[in-house]
């Protein structure tokens, strides 16, 4: 559970760090909104995939540790 929370916080931190960069891209207004919009769509789907993947990894790690404990017995 703490792992999940950690992953979520990490994702939030990455988002917070990367956002000013994204908003500073381009000077032309039209290209800026277009480019930024695409960036945001990519970022949104990346966040979705990364977080779900994080959950999968946390489940897998738990499974591994449980299996090790079972072998140990």
């Amino acid at each position, binding site marked *: *559970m*703490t792992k*999940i*929370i950690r992953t*979520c916080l990490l*994702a*939030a931190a990455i*988002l917070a760090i990367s*956002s000013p960069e994204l*908003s500073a891209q381009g000077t032309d207004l039209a290209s800026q*909104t*277009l480019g*930024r*919009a*695409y960036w*945001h*769509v990519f*970022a*949104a*789907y990346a*966040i*979705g*995939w990364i*977080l*779900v993947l*994080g*959950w*999968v990894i*946390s*489940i897998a790690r*738990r*499974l591994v540790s*449980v299996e090790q*404990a*079972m072998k140990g*017995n």
Partner: protein
Amino acid sequence: MSQDRLRQTGVALAVLGTLGALLVLWMVFFWVPTERTMGIAQRIFYVHVPSAWIAFFAFGIVALCSAVYLWLKDERLDMAALAAAEGGMVFCTIMILTGPLWARVSWGTWWTWEPRLVLTLLLWFIYFSYFLVRNATENPEQGKRFAAVVGIIGVLDIPLIHISVTWMRSLHPEPVVLKPEGPSLDPEMLITLMVGLATATMLFLGLFLMRYTVECLKREVDQRQTGAQAAQGA
């Protein structure tokens, strides 16, 4: 169903969900038309809305399992609530992070005090406290009961929070799918959304079942270990 069957179902659903997620990616980037007023950023819709649905659906499972757990004291219900809460928190985080990305482009601001935004942020914190109380007790049984109480109070308070935050003027897009005149979305957009919803549901249920069976195994092992320790001590 036996645990093996549950795990197999979970894996199958998760694989289907992953395939669905790839399909959604393709649809979002290459197939669905661009929305006229909100532009490209509207494509975030197809990940934002399905995760919102899962976040609330999962909390429903958490609350229901918690309530019955307090009543019947069946360990399995607590494990189901825990698994659902983990998944719910993952999808709630996705929703909260993708929302501002969309809002920044469409409304020009990362955050507004818009009712549904506030509600989901509070939902996230209720999930957060669910895990916090579970891990903050010396006696794990007590932690399970505390978490269940948080889940139940949360589900009772959420409608009230919803009423109070919607009391103020809303900036969020009005409901476009569930309304009396029928959906006002373009058919292709609607199909993409439906695929997104189905995908998120399958992914969630699949991973939920996997997490649940892992938790079953873990508690079995824990029990055996404490049993062995007790035998050694005696």
